[in-house]
């Protein structure tokens, strides 16, 4: 930061963050698919001219941490054929730095004085990408080809003119071409706004200052985070978390990590993690890095600068061919969920002994399927994400876990829709959406409660099962806290006649009822240390039973 006015850095950083936020606003309002405009399952970010992430102030944490890789691959592929007015699209995790296929990334280079100074990017989960199953997640996939369309870095706008053919080619390979085209247009609109803003920044601060200021913003972030990491005692720490099935059988899969803290450097080593597996629960290298960054960011309380400088001191070893850096053509669509949870959890557990005040207990893992079917009025296919069947979050040393909340990979950024709105859009009738007694892990701070979510399908439906949170507790407790309860998914013509569904694979049913009893998050600290009034309130609320109050918390009325 030598020679640069610190006030310039402060202002520049704030303006960069505004660029990503403004792109997010444009994208959210213009997108067509509910997954984007209702749930904000997208992110906008800005990289410098070589792919360093210089702002990730918008969107979903798991999207952006490794966002720079896509830019690096794009530069490698196109080199000096990148022209002013071009816009690129990509999604492939193997050749294009994507995180997984459903997230389309649209990237626009920003030119000034004939040089590329920056890349502005939007990454958004699509409603469909073709492949073996509607709704982007194909649990039967054994190769990435089964998962959907693979897109290397392609030009969708060439020097200001849209390549209609390429956009059509991509959209036609999905089940909702109209919606996907509209969302690509929304992304093009968003990066267009972003690139104008970067040009304005260059003009304001001067062409010669842009790159030094980008460097300074990254250096600043690095310095701030290094100071925080120095607070963690030096040492080597291990942590692990499990997936209970490998996607095709009840074979446990372990994510093991060794984290070495040396001064302000972190080495995150996945050498102990096993080889890649046959199912879509492998993690792309991009996703693995994003998950590690997410774990470290939450460990530091989330309050760190939102750019790649914050992660510069983190070195990640993910052996090629392992679950966290698989070789082509391993499928990996599910990675933003699993093993993202497992990677983040393993990192947190590694730090539990060293810095208990900083870690979070485990977040309950989701167990709801993706449902689809034909609309009874003959108007075509519907795909329903059960957003309101989510689990509870893990507790921290300062608060209880959030009772039912959006998923860990988004830190809850992906909000839940109103069920009344869902009833207007889908052929369903909701029967219940309420907290589940004793589902939260106990602790001085208790975990978040899961829910009992029950929905009647008024027509035949298919369910893509992803019951990661089924079968055993997943929201582990820390520092003497206990784990939240496991989840359960059942289906049948009535609630009484419902049967348990498997935790992976597919299920179909005629019109009938699907019930998800979602897991709870883990507790933090010894339950015996919980404030007595909080225990009594939970008891009176029906969040915990008398037995739990007495036996676990040691509180009787």
């Amino acid at each position: 930061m030598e020679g640069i006015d610190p006030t310039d850095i402060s202002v520049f950083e704030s303006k960069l963050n505004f660029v990503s936020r403004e792109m997010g606003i444009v994208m959210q309002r213009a997108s067509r698919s509910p997954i984007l405009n209702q749930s904000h399952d997208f992110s906008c970010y800005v990289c410098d001219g070589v792919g360093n992430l210089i702002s990730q102030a918008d969107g979903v944490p798991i999207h952006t941490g490794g966002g720079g890789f896509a830019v690096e691959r794009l530069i490698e592929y196109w080199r000096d054929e990148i022209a002013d007015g071009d816009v690129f699209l990509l999604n492939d995790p193997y050749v294009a730095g994507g995180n997984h296929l459903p997230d389309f990334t649209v990237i626009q280079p920003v030119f000034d004085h004939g040089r590329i100074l920056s890349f502005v990017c939007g990454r958004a989960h699509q409603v469909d990408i073709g492949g073996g199953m509607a709704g982007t997640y194909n649990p039967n996939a054994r190769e990435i080809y089964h998962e959907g369309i693979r897109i290397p870095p392609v030009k969708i706008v060439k020097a200001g003119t849209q390549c209609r053919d390429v956009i059509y080619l991509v959209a036609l390979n999905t089940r909702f071409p109209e919606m996907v085209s509209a969302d690509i247009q929304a992304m093009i609109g968003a990066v267009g706004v972003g690139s104008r803003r970067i040009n304005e920044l260059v003009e304001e601060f001067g062409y010669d200052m842009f790159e030094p200021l980008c460097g300074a913003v990254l250096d600043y972030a690095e310095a701030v985070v290094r100071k925080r990491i120095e607070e963690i005692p030096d040492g080597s720490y291990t942590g692990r978390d499990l997936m209970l099935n490998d996607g095709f059988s009840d074979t446990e899969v372990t994510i093991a990590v060794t984290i070495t803290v040396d001064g302000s450097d972190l080495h995150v080593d996945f050498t102990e993690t096993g080889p890649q597996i046959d199912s879509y629960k492998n993690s792309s290298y991009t996703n693995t890095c994003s998950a590690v960054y997410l774990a470290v960011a939450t460990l530091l309380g989330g309050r760190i600068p939102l750019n790649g400088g914050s992660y510069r001191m983190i070195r990640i070893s993910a052996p090629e061919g392992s679950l966290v850096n698989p070789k082509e053509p391993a499928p990996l669509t599910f990675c933003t969920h699993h093993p993202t949870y497992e990677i983040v959890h393993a990192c947190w557990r590694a730090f539990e002994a060293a810095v208990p005040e900083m870690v979070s207990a485990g977040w309950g893992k989701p167990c709801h399927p993706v449902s689809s079917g034909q609309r009874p009025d003959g108007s075509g296919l519907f795909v329903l994400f059960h957003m309101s069947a989510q689990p509870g979050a893990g507790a921290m040393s300062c608060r209880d876990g959030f009772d039912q909340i959006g998923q860990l990979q988004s830190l809850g950024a992906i909000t839940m829709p109103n069920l009344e709105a869902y009833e207007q859009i889908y052929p369903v009738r909701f029967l219940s959406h309420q907290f589940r007694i004793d589902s939260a892990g106990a602790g001085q701070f208790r975990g978040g409660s899961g829910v009992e979510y029950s929905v009647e399908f008024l027509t035949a439906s298919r369910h893509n099962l992803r019951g990661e949170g089924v079968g055993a507790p997943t929201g582990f407790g820390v520092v003497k806290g206990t784990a939240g309860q496991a989840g359960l998914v059942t289906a049948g013509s009535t609630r009484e006649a419902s049967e348990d569904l498997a935790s992976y694979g597919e299920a179909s049913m005629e019109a009938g009822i699907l019930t998800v009893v979602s897991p709870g998050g883990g507790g933090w600290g010894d339950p015996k240390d919980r404030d007595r009034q909080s225990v009594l309130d939970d008891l009176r609320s029906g969040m915990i039973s008398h037995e739990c109050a007495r036996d676990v918390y040691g509180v009787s009325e």
Partner: protein
Amino acid sequence: MTPANTPEAKRYKIGIDVGGTFTDLSIVEDTESGPSLSFHKALSTPDDPSVGVFDALNVAAQERGISREALLSQTRFLGLGTTVATNIMVQREGADVALVATRGFRDALSIRRGIREDVWDIRRPHPKELVPRWNRFTIEERVDSKGNVLLTPRANELDRLAEEIRASDVEAIAICLFNSFLNHENETIVANYLRRAFPNHFISVSTELIPRIGEYERTSTTVINAFVGPKTARYLTQLVTALREAGLQQEPLIMQSNGGLVGVAPLLTAPVRAVLSGPAAGGSAAASWAEISGADDVVFFDMGGTSIDILVTEQKNANHKDVTAIEGYHMVVPSIDIRTVGTGGGTIARVDPGGLLRVGPDSAGSVPGPSSYGRGGILPTVTDANLVLGRLSGDQFMAGKMPLDMHLARQAIDVGIAKKQGVSVEQSALDIIRIANENMAASLRIVAAEGGLDLRKYMLVSAGGAAGMHVSAIRRMLDMAGVYIPLQASVACSVGMLLSDIQRDQVISIVRPISEIEPGELQERLDTEAGQASAELLESGCTTDKISHRCSVELRYVGQVWNISVPLDLPVTQFALDAATVRFHDRHKKLYHHDHRDQSVELINIQFVTVGNTDKIEWREATPVKDIKPAPGKRPVWFAWSDTPVDTKVFDGMTLQPGDSIEGPAVIEERTTSVLLDRGDLARVDSFGNYVVTVKEN
């Protein structure tokens, strides 16, 4: 016979705004030479805001040499802002509420759709729910997605519900059933039953307030209404009684969140409509100033000690929004779209652990206030920086009633910033101002992005005591059309009361493709709404000839979730529906740069607005007195473009008159605010005595 000669003539119109620090009173008096507008201030009294209201009335009466009773008995209009409901929310000191929900759905309030304001702020819990789970009761009933009743509440269920509520010992009840926005039959059955069972409880019913889709927001709104209900109703009833006893013969009107006034009676059952009453009158003030500034589209920028309220007008109307939040609690109540940003005069500057200067969001408030107030504050603030730079005068702050201490300001900046960064105190002060201005500009950029505004076409209207120091810089950063600084800037909201209509907004959800809307059927539904609304306005003292209705519809492409609101002409005809659809496509194109004219458009919500026209202030143009030339003083002021202080002209605003122009750099000192002009700025005094700041033509 002129009104002034008639003892019983009601010659005063009064607007009162209860702020955090001051209660402002604006008064229009009919005089022989026409209406005359003046202002008074009293200290606010948060424990019982009515004390401050009466203090302000006392000041106004004293200055006229009449009794308060004489003043009130001659008042024909009294418009009031109220912060009672707001304060109940801020302090979480509302009623104990029971919530009645459909069996299986009582936790929507607590789950709150998982909304977390800042996802990265991982250690912060949700705000505590307003109704604890043990007071959230359910009843077996169901309405389907088409509005058919599948299950009617049974008598024994209602009995059981009443018993549970009785045992819970609450003073208010909120009722919000699933899908009730489609058919309120079941909700009404429950409400009627509970009203009979609990005649003295405050009962809040979702479909009576806002029959709008979305169980979380509708429940939350109904609960907030019940939470603030009993106290707000008591306060308003007492205030009206006290005003009447003090001589007021007219029904006072209260400002609602939507920027319209209403009589007290409707607020006694729907106080949620006034939770954001405080700054809402700024909407009318902004619209009025937009009109006289000739700009139509303005950004109104009301900056006080701790925060800035920003709102936007388009075509002289303040923008509204449907979903608002207070302290993290959500409401779907049509409201003036006001964004509050945590930068004010008292905002604190500090060097962060990475060595960068940051300004805000925390504030020294009015207690202890900026270091220069000499009330014990030791942290450097924006006001301290303005003082150090010579932009504010230590002697002239608040017309000399509140001297500022230069030594304390310098010391705070020196210790807090300058020493740590190794620069001079003045340079630190310049840096503080630069970052504060940058933060404010960033907030405006977000407002512009969300609303699709081209700020270059907008005038920045400066309001509040602290804005004058910053507006010219912000205008320049955003390349806005100009700055408009009304003489009444520091009492904008109380003036706004005198510029507002009586207004009732109703929102109903009809989720259906617009092609399937039968115009006659919709018109019939709106006729019913019109009847109810007119009755309320008549109750608020309006007469039939002043009442008008207008309507807007929220539309979207099938599959979208964001709605765009466009006007729907009344009466509803097929032609009117088609015209609204075209407006929707146009607006979509304008906001998002693309549209899909061949695609199906669906109706979501209808907003039906009923307005009772009031008799408002008309701004009068002043005639300049010839041959008075402003005689500015001078003092050194620091600017970023000079390494040494610049000897800068300082004008006393009282000596300026229409037609005068002042070139920056300069400072203009008004009674309750000061205006900084940078080099290249040109301020002109317009015919209303207000300042218009633009870029000097070379």
